[in-house]
């Protein structure tokens, strides 16, 4: 249950997004940090993840999108994940280029990175990593995730009367 224990992590693209270099990169990054990664590839809907992983309970689900539809794809995905009893409590993060306005001049008001991240967190994402991504913050976040076995043990402790 230390921050160094290996996690089972699912890396996936979002429903309408076909980009894959981001997924290959995230897989290598997380494996480099000592975790086990299943890379689902591009164009995966939230319901597909639920179907595949409901009974395999990964420790962390990492979604990535760069095609500009990340917010709407992400909202649909997290709704499906949070609606599934088995995955409702699994940490789910999303990152990448989530809108079509970039992060500078054109990204204002409701398109600003802050506003996009807030809507995604409110919808159920545990954390959001918008470009330009702070890798240190991501590493810290992943390090803080408690492996499933740890979670189960903790729950058992909490629910077992002394």
């Amino acid at each position, binding site marked *: 249950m230390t921050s160094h224990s290996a996690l089972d992590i699912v890396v996936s693209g979002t429903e*309408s*997004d076909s980009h894959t270099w981001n997924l290959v990169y995230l897989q290598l990054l997380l494996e480099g940090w000592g975790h086990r990664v299943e890379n689902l590839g591009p164009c995966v809907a939230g319901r597909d993840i639920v179907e595949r992983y409901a009974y395999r309970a990964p420790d962390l689900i990492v979604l990535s999108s760069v095609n500009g*539809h990340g917010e709407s794809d992400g909202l649909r995905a997290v709704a499906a994940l949070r609606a599934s009893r088995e995955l409702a409590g699994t940490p789910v993060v999303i990152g990448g280029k989530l809108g079509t306005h970039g992060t500078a001049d054109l990204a204002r008001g409701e398109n600003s990175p802050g506003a996009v991240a807030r809507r995604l967190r409110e919808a159920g994402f545990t954390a959001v990593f918008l470009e330009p991504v702070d890798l240190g913050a991501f590493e810290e976040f992943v390090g803080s995730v408690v492996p499933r076995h740890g979670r189960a043990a903790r729950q058992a402790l909490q629910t077992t009367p002394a």
Partner: protein
Amino acid sequence: MDDARPATVSRSLFGDFVARSRAAGRLVVQPRMGFGEPQVMRDGLTAVKAARATTIGTVTLDSYTRVGDLDAARKALDEGADINGYPIVTHGLATNRKLVEDLLAPDFPIQVRHGSARPQDIIAASLRAGLDATEGGPVSYCLPYGRISLRDSVRNWEESCALMTAARAHGAEPHVETFGGCMLGQLCPPSMLVAISLLEGLFFHRHGVRSISLSYAQQTHADQDRGAIRALRRLARQFLPDADWHVVVYTYMGVYPRTGAGARLLLEQSVDIAVRTGAERLIVKTAAEAHRIATVEENIQALETAAAADRRVRATGPLPADSDDLTDTDGDDFTDDPDAQEILDEATSVITAVLALSEDPGAALTAAFAHGLLDVPYCLHADNMGRTRSYIDRDGRLRWSRTGSLPFRAAGRTTDATDMTAADLLGALSRVQRSFDRAADLGVPPGHVQLIN
């Protein structure tokens, strides 16, 4: 040559425009532009037509339409949400006709670019609006784009070709551009790009398309890219003798320079490569590429920058490649050009091995991937064997480090077969970006930028 054709054979508006521009000594330039709102899309096309450049218009479709999620496209339109392209199926016939009305003409063809492995309704919607020029291919719009199987993609593209050729009854003459010269945008060695582009061109031709363009995307080294385009032209003359074909170059399709000056330099280098190899058309990238969807103005700037670069290159004197097509005979080696020779040798081995698998080009392509005769490095698609790897050499050339079951050996070269870490991968993916941002700072002229480490 063209005059010898029977008068009854109609010519593709698209192919004709490109041929006339070539004869006039002008590179045709084209954006990758697409907006969800019909009025914005139309304003964009209007501006492209008016740009100080020899242009063709582009309607790039959004990702929902690409993956066939028409409900999501509908919802995005209803909510006024921003999408990354023009949803041609959802907008429907009346809107699509209005989009191109009084713009689409022999002096301004318009092409639909979509990235779909299930394009039948996209093709049908395009044809109904009078848009008979498109892009794609059973391999290049499948492996880099999602989860549809190669077998299904082949069938879908066969049906799409049938839709296009049937539209001749209504006066259309389809033009299709292969996207095979751009597998995943980056780190796919030139010989594989040339081979896939040519094989997709053959696929279209066998399925009745007579006007075809063969693509090649700029990679990491200007000499190697020039060699690749020479090899591609040689192969096209050999394998597509009775088609109306031309070569289209894509400005770099991988991780793009961040600075305006770096972005412009990479664009200008692609113009240099295209013009010096006799390529007829170029699809540009904008200064916004690394960051977000470009505005109309940024697209126009890129087109005009490319047109100016085209004039500058031509002003330097006669282009060696101008005579290439006439003097180049199929038996000759490219004795003066080791890059072209190496790429020609590798691509020829691949093409010959693939075509030997079946009379039917679609079946041959499917079998070739199953046997690993075609195998794209770093491609996650289930129908790609995934036994090949590539790297960028010290001199900036893109090379094979593992050739898997490809029908040739990357012999006599240092191969770097160590596994990549995330940092290595990012380093390789961003080398062009870093090098051009830096070279722009140093004032290196286009055509001469070399990669730094």
